[in-house]
């Protein structure tokens, strides 16, 4: 991949900024990445400030910094700050949109075969409660990514019956990166709302909303962004279908009493309608620091390093660890590396590596139900790399895996 690379001294700097690299070998970035020191400092200092000044008083004093996070996120994604809402976590943000939609019996939700288990459960709940139908778009076997011609056919055939396209940019269990730009184009052409779950993509590659048309995007702080847990954000396209949607929950932040209106209340304009009054400002500010820190490196530079490390790991797994099958597919891959080892359960691989302070995760079938059932897999081991991981750490992982058999 051409373009600016992280130099060896950049990697040293990234690692010395990451205190966790002194104690663990962390290949669970797709679960929750190690936070860099600046993020830790922001969260700790703001919490302390609340203790000294009072929670509301600290928020008032930090107003400019709190507002600046909307700017930072908007800058990273190329959208505007009023299109961003703070949410407790990405799932709650996704739920806010999904469960606020006025589905009725016979409406179709279109999704991918690698869709995340949580989202699938929500589809099934909506199926049971409102009679919604679910249409699953398969991957193109020749490219490994979502088959966009199959998606086109589905939306053309379904017409007005298709009420939502809900797709995860990168699945939880695989290194594939779906063509969000092409999916967005199709949705725009057919005027179908597109909800993009970008949990695994934000922070590991450039996500440019000037290129990807979607009606909403959900993201989490704790994965590739390297922010604190318990925080996410929601993007709502001001030209899109969800800008004027009435959220199913309202509070003093998102609406105000209005005796002059027939309903007695008015929902506030903008993405703010999807926010709650109560939120963790420490985590919001921490996520803001994480966004700035990522943008300082450059998302394209980050992607290059991550892809280099992931390819290195995939190659070494196949070349050096007997009985290993790398289970990633796709013309375009990212930092998630998934594999199975013959004769060793995924959970046992994870446990054995943990004894050597190597963190990986084990992705179960229920997390990616359609895909895992199709491939007849009960679990895959997931070793997800980030730019602060080193090639030496990959060697230690490979050596430890060799010792398993």
């Amino acid at each position, binding site marked *: 991949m051409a373009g600016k690379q992280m130099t060896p001294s950049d990697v040293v700097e990234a690692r010395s900024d990451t205190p966790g690299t002194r104690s663990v070998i962390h290949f669970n970035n797709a679960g929750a990445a190690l936070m860099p020191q600046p993020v830790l*400092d922001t969260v700790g*200092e703001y919490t*302390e*400030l609340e203790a*000294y*000044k009072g929670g509301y008083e600290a928020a008032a*004093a*930090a107003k400019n910094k709190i507002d600046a996070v909307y700017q930072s996120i908007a800058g990273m994604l190329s959208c505007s700050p009023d299109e961003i809402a703070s949410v407790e976590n990405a799932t709650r943000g996704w739920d806010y949109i999904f469960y606020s939609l006025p589905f009725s019996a016979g409406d179709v939700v279109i999704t991918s075969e690698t869709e995340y288990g949580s989202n699938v459960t929500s589809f099934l709940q909506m199926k049971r409660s409102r009679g919604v139908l679910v249409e699953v778009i398969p991957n193109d076997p020749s490219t490994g990514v979502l088959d966009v011609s199959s998606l086109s056919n589905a939306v053309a055939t379904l017409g007005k019956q298709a009420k939502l396209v809900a797709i995860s940019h990168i699945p939880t269990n695989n290194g594939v990166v779906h063509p969000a730009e092409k999916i967005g184009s199709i949705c725009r052409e057919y005027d179908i709302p597109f909800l993009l779950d970008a949990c695994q993509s934000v922070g590991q590659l450039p996500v440019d909303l000037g290129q990807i048309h979607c009606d909403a995007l959900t993201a989490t702080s704790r994965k590739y962004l390297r922010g604190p847990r318990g925080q996410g954000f929601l993007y709502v396209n001001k030209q899109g279908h969800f800008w004027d949607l009435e959220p199913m929950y309202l509070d003093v932040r998102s609406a105000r009493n209005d005796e002059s209106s027939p309903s007695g209340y008015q929902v506030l304009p903008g993405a703010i309608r999807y926010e709650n009054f109560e939120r963790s400002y420490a985590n919001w500010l921490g996520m803001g620091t994480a966004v700035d820190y990522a943008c300082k490196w450059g998302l394209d530079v980050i992607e290059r390093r991550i892809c280099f490390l992931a390819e290195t790991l995939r190659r070494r797994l196949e070349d050096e660890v007997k009985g290993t099958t790398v289970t990633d597919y796709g013309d375009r891959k990212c930092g998630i590396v998934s594999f199975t080892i013959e004769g060793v359960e995924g959970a046992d691989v994870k446990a054995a590596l943990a004894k050597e302070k190597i963190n990986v995760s084990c992705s179960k079938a229920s997390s990616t139900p359609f895909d895992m059932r199709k491939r007849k897999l009960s679990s895959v081991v997931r070793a997800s790399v980030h730019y602060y991981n080193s090639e030496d750490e990959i060697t230690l992982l490979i050596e430890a895996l060799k010792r398993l058999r």
Partner: protein
Amino acid sequence: MHGGYDVSKVDPATAVEMEFVDRDGSKRTVLAPEGASVLDVAHANDIELEGACEGSLACSTCHVYVDEDTYGKLDEPTDDENDMLDLAFALKENSRLGCQVVADRKTTEKMEITLPQATRNMAVDGYVAKPH
């Protein structure tokens, strides 16, 4: 006598300009007599900078941020100052203890002192500072 000097008696001809940026972002420029510490200058001008141990290097309540230009010109902090600075809230690269930075025409002209948002006020050897 706390603060050590009377602001009305500061000689403008020999004084050093010092700018304070308060916690709400507001700025105040004052004239400091040479040799006066940032803590002295703050107290003489009713700027809220606590000095719980009264400049004896036994706390971090007079923690301030010095503008980068001036920071580079100051003498390095002593080990004793660094030990107390380590306990300060929101420590940064340009942190110093206000009781250890003194006004000097050669190095601190137009120095900008920013007050941190909070201080960690631990009781020092059982001593509890009384309001001045």
